[in-house]
């Protein structure tokens, strides 16, 4: 059946509404980025103007790169995020395989137990987590953050990956068993490659809250050597709050990696969300 073609007026209104909201969503980011490249006077005189050769200035970036230890902060954030994602994916996939593949006593209970963490935020256990980390001597180490983020990411990872692994064909796994593969090789050599798209979705979902988290770096690893980018820019901007060039440059530097990653992975991410991975 042919759809009735929408009137040009209605299509126009739809684009107007979506365009307006797109503008609202992008404008603050755009404003920050363009002003970070301007000198102080023109930031105030003409906030909406693009940087021109006469107003172009990198003084903010000089301050940020000279004063703040942003390279180190980036490195910390990168290590914490990458290692946590690695463990979330590895442990999560292993547990999901056990839950989806084998029938054993307490299978459903174990699934529910691991799913509990999707709804109950790990933050509520902060008091005891800090106590435990102090006892283990892990305060102000990246290990503490990695442990917490791995635990935080696991419930959703197990949940999504279990759903996906149920769809892997039994015949394939049985063929592997007949050929004498051990259960471990079946997991690593047959199943893992097949669920790679789901792993990518889980990785993106896990990455965002870890990269952006302020609470745990603030409480578990606030020392200079272990600050993440989020905490580092928070502290830096707090100190330089009247130096607008530096603040805008620091913000732009903090946005940039997210922006680049998003442009690279946005199709993956949006497909992951819309394919119902989190329903």
């Amino acid at each position: 059946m042919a759809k009735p073609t929408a009137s040009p007026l209605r299509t126009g209104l739809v684009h107007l509404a979506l365009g307006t909201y797109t503008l609202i969503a992008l404008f603050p980011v755009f404003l920050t980025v363009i002003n970070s490249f301007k000198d102080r006077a023109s930031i105030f005189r003409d906030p909406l103007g693009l940087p021109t050769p006469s107003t172009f200035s990198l003084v903010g970036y000089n301050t940020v790169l000279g004063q703040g230890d942003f390279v180190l902060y980036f490195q910390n954030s990168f290590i914490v995020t990458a290692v946590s994602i690695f463990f979330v994916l590895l442990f999560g996939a292993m547990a999901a395989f056990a839950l989806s593949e084998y029938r054993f006593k307490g299978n459903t209970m174990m699934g529910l137990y691991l799913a509990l963490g999707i709804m109950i935020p790990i933050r509520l256990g902060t008091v005891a987590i800090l106590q435990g980390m102090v006892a283990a001597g892990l305060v102000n180490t990246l290990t503490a953050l990695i442990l917490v983020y791995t635990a935080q990411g696991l419930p959703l990872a197990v949940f999504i990956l279990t759903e996906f692994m149920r769809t892997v064909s039994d015949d394939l796994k049985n063929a592997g068993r007949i050929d004498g593969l051990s259960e471990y090789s079946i997991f690593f050599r047959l199943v893992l490659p097949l669920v790679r798209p789901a792993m990518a979705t889980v990785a993106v979902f896990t990455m965002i809250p870890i990269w952006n988290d302020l609470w745990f770096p603030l409480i578990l690893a606030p020392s200079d050597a272990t600050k993440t980018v989020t905490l580092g820019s928070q502290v830096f901007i707090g100190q330089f709050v009247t130096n607008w060039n530096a603040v805008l440059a620091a913000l732009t530097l903090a946005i940039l990696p997210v922006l680049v990653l998003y442009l690279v992975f946005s199709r993956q991410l949006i497909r992951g969300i819309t394919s119902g991975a989190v329903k």
Partner: protein
Amino acid sequence: MGVPAISLSEARYWPLRYHLENGSRVPRYARPKIKSRALMTTVAEVSIDRGADKRQRRWHILVFLAPAVLVYTAVMILPLIETLRLSLFNVKDGQSVFVGFGNFQVLFGDPRWAASFWNALRNNFVFFLIHMLVQNPIGVALAALLSVPKLRFGAFYRTAMFLPTLLSFVIVGFIWKLILSPIWGVSPYLMDLVGLKSMFSPWLGKPGTALIAVSLISVWQYVGIPMMLIYAAMLNIPDEVLEAAECDGVTGWSQFWKIKLPLILPSIGIISILTFVGNFNAFDLIYTVQGALAGPDGSTDILGTLLYRTFFGFQLQIGDKSMGATIATVMFLIILSGVCLYLFAIQRRMRRYQF
């Protein structure tokens, strides 16, 4: 005559034998219904050469589960339980003493604590309410617009509108702090363009408007999540349903209200509970925009910032572990009751549509 019984049973059952030995899921209809003893012996005979070593405990299940369960239990579940336990203790003369619900009595009744606790709880409800009334309707509206058939630039709009959700609270908080700042003058300038300059005031600095302003910043950041989930739900509505509606003359606006909205109700339920959990656990944005004191004058204080100040201490206030655990326990109970309400009351009543 030819085929011996033993090879027949082998041929028929050996995939299942692998299933059974390895404990994998076999659909109920496919499980062998072994009634005759004779058949059982033949199966047993076939498997006798390799069956003996395979019947042992299935250690691999344990190996697969152990790392996730250990990390999750040690770093998440046990601390959570320990926090709940700590809320029943307090320090007296340097000793940890069991005080029962004493901490809760102090939190709810002691004038020093009660004022800030009830204030934070009320603000948290306002914070949640603004999200429910602004963020989720905007999200649904954007999703409805995005799912207009044959929309051009759809992918661009989606990508752009989801961007703020990915930015950290620190970035979002400071960007909006700058934009709303009367010193920079961007917002008065923009409001002047539409003739509303007189309406401008330093919203973040006034106790009456600060909470609303912060909530709207948070809405700006998170509107992408309901938008995407609802958009996904709308894509899942089959064309036949919409075509049937069009044949009956239900199009456009009334199609949204009468056909699409009822079908996406389950997703709206999920979004509501996600918003609830997220809001009653929020901290970062308020901390970034208004500081740990959640000023002006505590007007943007929510449970998350109260927990931070209580537990960790701020300026002259010394950190208090027991009261911190008490506030965390209250937050836990609030979130738990919300989740339970959703699971038992709302989700059960909601009809699941199967296409």
